[in-house]
């Protein structure tokens, strides 16, 4: 595998160029945003749940490096149809597995930004227990 393939597998670049579920909901059950001050990456996530607390739909918006935006895009793709409990079980390793390339300690913050934002949003949702208006 050549150097560039090791760094940016084609599907990371595809997600970066055409992010999935990109956009926002005016009303969402889970809604949170976060920054990675180190490189200025920003990610905001919006999740709608149905009555059984299963993810009905999801959007994200953001800006930043390919790693941060592609991992957010990949994360949103896996959410639909998952129960809140299943979403809470998504781990750091799951994200790194989706990216599929070695991520150094500095870039780890980029890779995990969207997961941290999602986790923070779930905490807020469980504290309030009601839909948030963004």
């Amino acid at each position, binding site marked *: 595998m050549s*150097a*560039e393939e090791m760094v940016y597998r084609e599907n990371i670049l595809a997600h970066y160029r055409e992010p999935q579920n990109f956009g926002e909901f005016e009303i969402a059950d889970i809604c949170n945003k976060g920054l990675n001050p180190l*490189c200025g990456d920003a990610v905001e996530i919006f999740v709608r749940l149905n009555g059984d607390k299963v993810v009905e739909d999801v959007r994200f918006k953001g800006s930043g*490096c390919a790693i941060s935006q592609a991992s957010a895009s990949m994360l949103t793709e896996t959410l639909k149809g998952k129960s809140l409990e299943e979403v809470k079980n998504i781990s750091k390793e799951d994200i790194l597995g989706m990216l599929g390339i070695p991520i150094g300690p500095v870039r780890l913050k980029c890779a995990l930004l969207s997961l941290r934002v999602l986790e923070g949003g779930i905490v807020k949702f469980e504290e309030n227990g009601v839909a948030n208006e963004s």
Partner: protein
Amino acid sequence: MQLKEALQPLDIESLRKDFPILQRMVNGHLITYLDSAATSQKPKQVILALEDYYKRYNANIHRGVYKLSEEATQAYEDAHTKVASLIDASFDEIIFTRNATEGFNLVAYAWGLEHVKEGDNIIVSWMEHHSNLVPWQFVARQNGAVLKHIRITEDGLLDMDHFLSILDERTKIVSITQFSNVLGTINDVKTIGKLSHEKGAVFIVDAAQSVPHFAISVKEIDCDFMAFSGHKMLGPTGIGVLYGKKDILNTMRPFLYGGDMISEVNLDKSSWNEIPWKFEAGTPNIAGGIGLGVAADYLLGVGLDRIFEHTRNITKYALQKLSEIPGVVIYGPKEINLRGGVISFNVKGIHAHDLASILDRFGIAIRAGHHCAMPLMKHLGIQACARASFYLYNTLEDVDKLIEGINEARRIFGYVS
């Protein structure tokens, strides 16, 4: 100082042999280190000086009356003299700190909090590093003063008209970088200092980027304080310098209190040691200080005028090569005479962090991010940028490798070059 006509180009090949790290392989490539504005590499002379101190004469200073302590004291004090000769100051005006940041904090606490009154103002600029911004935000908030910022022009220069419009009799402190770590701009600190003094303000120079790169005379600049770091000028980390005019240092209260900074201690009160020791409380970074002295000697030995000339040639070449790449945006002055060996840039469609990661695969080290200058990034309308910075051990071939790497990144991201 050397005469211009006597300038000989650096013997780069033998000079590079002084820096063992330049032999390091990174990801299968010989390292191309283009991040000296973050921290410089160290010559073996500095590395050996640290080892020599710990192996042969490790002892505390200003205390023991035995041989080892005398040697350590002498070496540590000599280091102050060496640094003093680097910036044309006298020995007792050189305070060793941890870094430039601590130097600014020393002035902020020991001078700023004492003299800045409610309704006064402090002036910095949009191009300051956080180290020369955040301490002044603290002083202003603490004492009810106003913090003002000199704007920058489209060319990345300080807007001097704006400076004159915000400078007034209530200005107590003006603190400005001599050499921007992002834009590469070299500021006319002598003029800024003169204008500041006319209004009675204290003038401080952030010399973290400038001391490593060009010959400096604090007498000629006529600044009241100057702060810089050792690790950017071939010295060890954890050691830095605050220069202060003798008259001012003598009237200032100490910053940190404790051992070695006292002359007489009673149970309820104490009197202070002479400068510079009044400002160096506790056992200092002895090895670091000695190493810094060796670094100062090394720079003087090579000649700062030659170092400046060398990095300017590389910068000129890099500016030209970079501007030939489609989609590359370069920040800072276009005019080479107004800038030093730092180039910040972005490549269209490639985030600076992605670029840095790809370059790293080829052993090329550049900085990517906000460069501890978030307000400046905001002004430029960007989240981050890439930065290549050059120093005495860099070569034109290093630039060629950088350009090759950027073109490779453009290919990976699908921009045909």
